[in-house]
């Protein structure tokens, strides 16, 4: 019964989404306040019904209702309860439901935090979000119903993919989807501005906080995914340039460009049509990512079940959403005037370079991801594009990017002066060069790439600190600067930390793949690892072996590691659980390969010494914290307070407007 209620709730939600998508937009075009007024209540109702469907599927999973196909395929009665809940997004149908649910959460957030905006704008934004939801609900109901029954019911489920049975995986997809879906708000604001024909600075001001929130979630989501790959796949890698990873990275690049371009549009009125295009692009790439992951057109380690019918549907949806928004763009954008003028050397041009570099980076990731598909489609055979391509293309793009990151914040709007700026940064730059040249010798190995990475990181840190110091000394204390300024500097500082992590782990890591019998030792990164053999291990839904590795430094034991090899009962899938001794300056990483037959208990063991690897994720967290700091800026809090004050007046206004609408409506023909 409960699954049928869920299914029915989805159908009701589809109806409400249709109303939400059509009436307010039509009302905004006609200036009809009643129709526009429909937007908020319908959006809330839409949310309630999707949430109900979400709860029904969660209930079916938690109560082990194996008469529901989705539950039988992605859960198991032996699976711990929190993973049964996480199985909600462990499969195709459930993750679509999560997508739609988060979309309605964002929509309700828009209805709550946009009371100070003009009614037409809000009506159009909520309408566009409703139309997107129509697409996803139709997709679910027509091709991927999460509530499909399995009759007769299965005795037990096939279990959640063991790769996903991990705490990181429980929160990774919701975070990532919050980011993906969040860009739909910026997209809806951009379309709303195009529809209304008011492409001025105001839409940029309104969509900035939303874009930043989405970006924060996406940043954390990607970092979690990367951290998960690091300890769960057992290879010690943290980024594989896999199509599915790229699918999340492309919207991130476009979103990062968008955040910067929105700043220019808001502050200077420049880049207006470009910013709109980026807002469309960031969301389109999110949708495209969903398509690539869900349709099976690309091969990936993330093997998802695929169905050609689904592929056709998502492609049609993509063509409708992206095609119509780009058509609208082609139609309306030429009428937008040019923004504020700026000189060749100015903060605007620095941000323009940032945008160009980020967009080219996104485009090259896109090209690399889809190149195998293009070649195959043109009949040139099957090939794959690997990390060498991405690293070759990406590093040269990021070097000028980071160099300009140090200069951008100190440049003036409109016209900056190069000699002035040089005077301000020359010591920072000089010191960075010296450190970058010398530090690798201290660390033990000098290569051009290590020096380059350190140069970029030092340059970024020193220019951030220099600017902070200057502003505090000259302009009177810490309070004078806005929180969005500190947020920006914190995020840039995070990039520097990230670069240090990447540089040092690439430059100084030690990886040993060895055959170890009990008692054997292997050295890596100044530590000695002694393998003490394995013992049997039994978990709730798996059996396995747990090895013991004693870590020694200078002959003294400093720790123990317990890598596991698990075989999950239901799927028979073997899983490697690496054991990591994490630290601020290095990780000691041990994972078990396979047992070597007839060798008296010897195993293939991977022993890694990973210096500064945690700085990679720490950098991402700092970037996200920068975003949060910027969001807590005074001007957004002022809006919130103003909202409280103007609430009553606005209410009367709406009331009058709707009264007016009623009169027009009931006028005798």
């Amino acid at each position: 019964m409960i699954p049928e209620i869920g299914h029915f709730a989805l159908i009701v939600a589809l109806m409400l989404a249709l109303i939400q998508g059509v009436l307010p937009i039509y009302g905004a075009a006609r200036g009809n306040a009643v129709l526009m007024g429909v937007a908020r209540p319908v959006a809330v109702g839409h949310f309630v019904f999707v949430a109900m469907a979400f709860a029904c599927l969660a209930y079916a999973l938690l109560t082990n209702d194996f008469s529901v196909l989705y539950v039988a395929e992605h859960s198991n009665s032996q699976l711990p309860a929190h993973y049964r809940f996480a199985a909600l997004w462990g499969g195709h149908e459930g993750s679509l439901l999560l997508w739609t649910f988060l979309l309605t959460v964002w929509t309700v957030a828009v209805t709550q935090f946009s009371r100070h905006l003009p009614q037409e704008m809000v009506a159009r934004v909520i309408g566009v979000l409703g139309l997107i939801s129509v697409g996803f609900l139709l997709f679910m109901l027509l091709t991927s119903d999460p509530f499909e029954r399995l009759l007769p019911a299965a005795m037990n489920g096939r279990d959640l993919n063991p790769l996903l049975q991990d705490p990181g995986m429980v929160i990774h997809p919701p975070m990532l989807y919050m980011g993906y879906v969040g860009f739909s708000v910026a997209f809806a604001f951009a379309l709303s501005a195009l529809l209304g024909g008011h492409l001025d600075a105001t839409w940029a001001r309104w969509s900035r906080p939303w874009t930043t929130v989405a970006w924060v979630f996406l940043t954390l989501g990607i970092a979690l995914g990367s951290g998960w790959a690091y300890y769960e796949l057992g290879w010690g890698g943290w980024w594989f340039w896999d199509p599915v990873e790229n699918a999340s990275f492309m919207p991130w690049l476009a979103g990062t460009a968008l955040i910067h371009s929105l700043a220019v549009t808001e502050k200077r009125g420049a880049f207006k049509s470009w910013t709109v295009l980026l807002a469309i692009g960031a969301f389109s790439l999110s949708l495209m990512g969903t398509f690539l992951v869900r349709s099976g057109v690309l091969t990936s380690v993330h093997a998802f079940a695929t169905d050609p019918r689904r592929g056709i549907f998502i492609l049609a949806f993509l063509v409708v959403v992206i095609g119509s928004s780009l058509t609208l763009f082609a139609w309306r954008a030429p009428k937008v005037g040019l923004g504020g003028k700026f000189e060749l050397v100015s903060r605007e041009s620095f941000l323009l370079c940032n945008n160009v570099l980020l967009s080219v980076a996104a485009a090259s990731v896109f090209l690399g991801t889809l190149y195998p598909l293009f070649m195959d489609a043109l009949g040139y055979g099957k090939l794959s594009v690997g990390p060498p391509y991405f690293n070759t293309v990406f590093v040269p793009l990021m070097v000028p990017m980071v160099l300009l990151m140090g200069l951008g914040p100190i440049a003036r709007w409109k016209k900056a002066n190069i000699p002035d700026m040089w005077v301000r940064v020359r010591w920072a730059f000089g010191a960075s060069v010296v450190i970058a040249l010398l530090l690798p010798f201290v660390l033990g190995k000098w290569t051009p790439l290590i020096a380059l990475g350190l140069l970029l990181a030092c340059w970024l840190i020193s220019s951030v600190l220099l600017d902070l110091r200057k502003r505090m000394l000259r302009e009177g204390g810490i309070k004078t600067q806005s929180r969005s300024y500190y947020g920006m500097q914190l995020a840039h500082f995070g990039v520097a930390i990230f670069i240090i992590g990447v540089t040092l782990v690439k430059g100084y890591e030690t990886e040993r793949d060895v055959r170890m019998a009990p008692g054997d030792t292997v050295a890596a990164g100044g530590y000695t690892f002694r393998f003490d053999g394995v013992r049997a291990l039994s978990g709730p839904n798996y059996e396995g072996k747990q090895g013991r590795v004693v870590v020694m430094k200078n002959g003294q034991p400093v720790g123990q590691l317990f890598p596991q090899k698990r075989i999950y009962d239901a799927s028979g899938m073997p899983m490697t659980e690496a054991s990591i001794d994490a630290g601020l300056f290095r990780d000691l990483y041990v994972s078990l390969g396979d047992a070597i037959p007839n060798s008296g208990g010897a195993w293939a063991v991977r022993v890694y010494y990973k210096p500064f690897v945690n700085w990679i994720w720490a950098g991402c967290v700092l970037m996200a914290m920068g975003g949060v700091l910027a969001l807590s800026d005074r001007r957004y809090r002022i809006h919130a307070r103003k909202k409280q004050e103007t609430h009553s007046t606005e209410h009367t206004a709406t009331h009058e407007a709707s009264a007016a609408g009623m009169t027009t409506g009931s006028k005798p023909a």
Partner: protein
Amino acid sequence: MMRFILPLVVFLVLAGFLYVGLGLHPHEVPSPLIDKPAPAFSLPQLDQPAKQFSPAEMKGKVWLFNVWASWCESCKDEHPVLLDLAERKLVPIYGLDYKDKPADAQAWLNTAGNPYKLVAQDTDGRVGINYGVYGVPETYIIDKQGIIRYKQIGPITMQNLRAIILPMVHKLEQQP
């Protein structure tokens, strides 16, 4: 004006590629062993470990070589199809029990039925590696000369049995 239409044009070209891409099968990596002689081996038989099986014995026959294991879930989906095929006696099926315990494998065949003429026991998976097995189940069609003509990755379904495997077996049987 043109520059504002450009994004749309680029997107439409891309959508065209994606449409074509949907019809392609990126997972079907052509096996390098197609049209090459089946790698030789000699392995103990599952039910009579004292006896050996070698593909050389199969010269002059078209046969299916099915890689499976008792731990493999998709093999269980495939099993009824194999039983049905064995019953119809259209083509002999030989099994390779890949990285599996003989006792488990025998127990599974005893309960679920045995479609195989004979099963070779590849406990350490070395023969599987020579055949380029990277997922179980996989099935090879081997012709009268001992040449691999086709490789099916993943379970055989009724559809691809009818559409690909049986027509190919039939065709190969016509050849000398």
